[in-house]
């Protein structure tokens, strides 16, 4: 994933969240072999943007070396949920959406 692609992804994704009124974003990074600080920040930005648009972000399938690199680079992916694979990710995302809906409902009462 190169830099321009990451920027394009951010644009497309935010547009898509608005047009489909999505509640959750699942990013599968299992094919991602090399990361740098820019990509790390992009993931973080995507998560923040999605949160503003009321959608939860979850990153799945990260490879061990990618995880080590991100940690060593000091990239804090705070606010991003993670899961081992797509199945687990969907499970988690559904739970999170239910949670946020129930708190919204609480807030309305």
């Amino acid at each position, binding site marked *: 994933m190169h830099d321009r692609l990451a920027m394009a992804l951010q644009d497309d994704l935010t547009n898509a969240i608005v047009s489909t009124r999505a509640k959750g974003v699942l990013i599968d990074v299992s094919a991602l072999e090399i990361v740098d600080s820019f990509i790390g920040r992009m993931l973080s930005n995507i998560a923040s943007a999605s949160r503003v648009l009321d959608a939860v972000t979850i990153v799945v399938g990260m490879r061990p070396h990618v995880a*080590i690199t991100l*940690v*060593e680079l000091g990239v804090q992916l705070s606010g991003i949920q993670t*899961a081992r694979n797509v199945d687990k990710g969907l499970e988690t995302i559904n739970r999170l959406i239910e949670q946020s809906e129930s708190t919204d409902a609480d807030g309305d009462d």
Partner: protein
Amino acid sequence: MPANFDALANAIEQSEKDLLGRWIATLTAAGATRSGQTSDKDLKDACGRFLKELRSALKNGAGEDITGQQWQDAREVLEEISTARALRGYSPVETALFVFSLKEPLFDLLRKMLAGEENLTDVVIASGVLLDRLGLFTTEVYQKSREELIKRQQDELLELSTPVIQLWDKILALPLIGTLDSARTQIVMENLLQTIVDAEAEIAIIDITGVPAVDTLVAQHLIKTVAAARLMGADCIISGIRPQIAQTIVHLGLDLQVVSKATMADALSMALKKTGQKVERVAARG
């Protein structure tokens, strides 16, 4: 200088047997056999081989420079002897003594053979320098083989001390033993993350019962490992924090940013709950 060594070579050649006998006697008196650890036969064999190589090197006109081609065979014999001694736990002094104890009988011999000749002092000084160099060479080889031994043991320790255990379905345990430095953390992290992938684990319990002390650096390493595991989609629980370590962590103002439990058992029961599993006692038997 070669003239001096000619005299030395002649002296050794003429009374090699006598010299060998006296050398071994000196070595034995100095405790070289270490109460039977090296047999008399081995010692005699080693001395004989070295003396033979020394003589042939000198006869071939080898100079004082023992790094030269002509000293190759003699060096090999010395290397073999020092390495064997280093591995058997001899002290550096005992190893160096092997060559240095040759001085006394050799100088005696020279004194007898060159009695009255004016080059006696020169020959003795030159031989002394030569034997010193050979002696230092054995010490160097000794040191080198000890270092290799230490390095190999370190590697073995590293492999031994970082196992990742599958404790339960989707639950891993990582018992850490010994000090956590950067090199070990790297290996621990890689092992843990790879096992998380292989076992599709959701929770990893890091047990630090065997970690003697936690300082800011160790804590930093732990935090990194936890963060990496979290990126992979697995949660971590730290267990086995001893009272003193808990106090240290508080004193240092560290935040491990992770759930911690006192014992591995507590951590396991929490992990089971989180993964929605349950262990039940079966109805009493009999």
